[in-house]
């Protein structure tokens, strides 16, 4: 879908008509086949449908999460016409005839009461919004790019959040759960006599710990768990292929254990969970204000660096994956680091729209 699509308005109305059909409790059986045919017709159709889908989901999510934000859409301003009529009616009343005053007084009272009832009804959807406030008690912590934050959890465990990272905590009588939503965090888990497990849910994988310290880093493609003290158990959640394999009766290793100075990298559809040896001091170097890498693919290095860079960085050129990087990064020396990158590797650094883009250099330029 592009801004220049001449049929955009028509296309959007069509997409919306399909979307509305699917909001029915029981859409007709033939609808889906016809919808699939429509989606296949032109790629812009699918994009239009998806953009409506997203907007509808976001409105619903806003209603649940932050109903106050939607207040402007809920408020029904009293119609100007109604006010004018009301004023006209009141001013047309003559108070010269004292005898008829009580009748008029009753009339005005009725009018005011009716307006009150009308406003009450206008307020109904607003009141219904507040049911959303009974959501489960949980904490959320977010750091900006280049930020770092230490969080002391209610059980005495401590965690340090890296740059551009977010977690949500859910503690109950049965378990201690932290969701790593994005970025990186270092955990020092307090052992509990009652044996309440401490779990970190990182999307593709869950890490279980009992009195231990470890680092979890998450991006779109993988989760890396590095243990600095004690032992942890890592369980991969069912990805699509592992779910299929399980249904077909083919076992896939889903659980790994890692001890001090060991690392497990979890990718959603990798065939096995491999435990490797690593240097935990290097992996957690971000806590001391710099980053260290040994033989890491350059695209991942850039993704890590971007969480600590004051300038937005982008390096998703697939060619960067085949370049391995060994070295360090100090946020204060960003410009020098970018300069060095261009000198050492076949890459170029360009600034477009305020974003610094790192990409493989075209072969002809050198």
């Amino acid at each position: 879908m592009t801004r220049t699509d001449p049929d955009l308005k028509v296309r959007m109305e069509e997409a919306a008509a399909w979307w509305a059909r699917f909001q029915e409790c029981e859409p007709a059986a033939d609808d889906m086949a016809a919808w699939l045919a429509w989606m296949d017709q032109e790629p812009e159709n699918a994009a239009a449908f998806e953009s409506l889908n997203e907007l509808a989901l976001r409105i619903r999510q806003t209603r649940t999460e932050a109903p106050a934000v939607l207040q402007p859409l809920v408020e029904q301003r009293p119609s100007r016409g109604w006010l004018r009529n009301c004023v006209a009616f009141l001013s047309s009343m003559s108070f010269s005839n004292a005898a008829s005053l009580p009748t008029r007084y009753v009339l005005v009272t009725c009018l005011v009461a009716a307006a009150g009832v009308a406003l009450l009804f206008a307020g109904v959807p607003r009141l219904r919004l507040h049911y959303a406030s009974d959501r489960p008690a949980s904490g959320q912590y977010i750091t900006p790019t280049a930020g770092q934050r230490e969080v002391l959890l209610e059980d005495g465990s401590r965690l340090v959040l890296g740059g551009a990272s977010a977690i949500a905590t859910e503690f109950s009588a049965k378990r201690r759960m932290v969701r790593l939503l994005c970025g990186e965090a270092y955990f020092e888990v307090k052992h509990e006599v009652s044996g309440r497990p401490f779990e970190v849910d990182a999307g593709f994988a869950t890490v279980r710990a009992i009195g231990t310290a470890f680092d979890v880093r998450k991006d779109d493609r993988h989760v890396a768990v590095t243990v600095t003290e004690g032992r942890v158990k890592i369980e991969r959640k069912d990805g699509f292929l592992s779910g299929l394999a399980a249904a077909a009766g083919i076992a896939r290793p889903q659980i790994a254990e890692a001890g001090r100075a060991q690392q497990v990298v979890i990718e959603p559809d990798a065939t096995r969970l491999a435990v490797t040896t690593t240097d935990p001091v290097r992996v957690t170097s971000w806590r001391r204000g710099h980053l260290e890498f040994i033989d890491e693919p350059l695209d991942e290095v850039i993704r890590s660096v971007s969480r600590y860079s004051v300038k937005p960085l982008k390096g998703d050129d697939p060619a960067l994956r085949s370049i391995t990087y060994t070295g360090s990064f100090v946020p204060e020396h960003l410009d020098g680091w970018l300069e060095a990158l261009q000198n050492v590797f076949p890459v170029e650094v360009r600034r477009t729209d305020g974003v610094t883009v790192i990409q493989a250099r075209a072969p002809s330029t050198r």
Partner: protein
Amino acid sequence: MSEKSPHPIEPLPSVENGTAPADLIEQLFRKHNALLVSFLKSRLRSEAEAHEVAQEAYVRMLQLERPGVVSYHRAYLFKIASNLAMDRLRQRTVQRHARLHEFVVDWLAAPSTDRRVLAEEEVATLQAAFAELPAKTQGIFRRHFIAGETLQEIARAIGLTDRMVRYHLAHALAHCRMRLGLEEPKT
């Protein structure tokens, strides 16, 4: 497709090309998963549940005895997914209140940052877009998105046909989308 039975699933035609069922389904997944999830999202109004049901549908396909040609399989895949979604929606009306908690959990588990609440400026744009719509259309949009009424409930309450309610709601959403600008959805 028969309209009589709610869940008509005819037997699959067999094919002697020797492709393993898991491979066929993997192909289906790679080719059609985005479309399937898009459909399920619109039905189930939850990203996480859409992915769950999609996966369940693939597993069901795998359990079918005779694998067929991929292009033919697609209709089956969507049929199965649609039935699974229907089952979920029926269960959901029973446990409407438990959904709130799930919704919050879904949001927390959402993989990307594009699933976010509307910003205040966006709501301001929506408000302006709203003012351009007829009062009846505005009311229907509010009843559905803010008060959480189903299309059928709205139709009954204001004495319109289901088809007209659908029309108003579709028009309102399309209009809002156009006014909010057309940034590419990040999927």
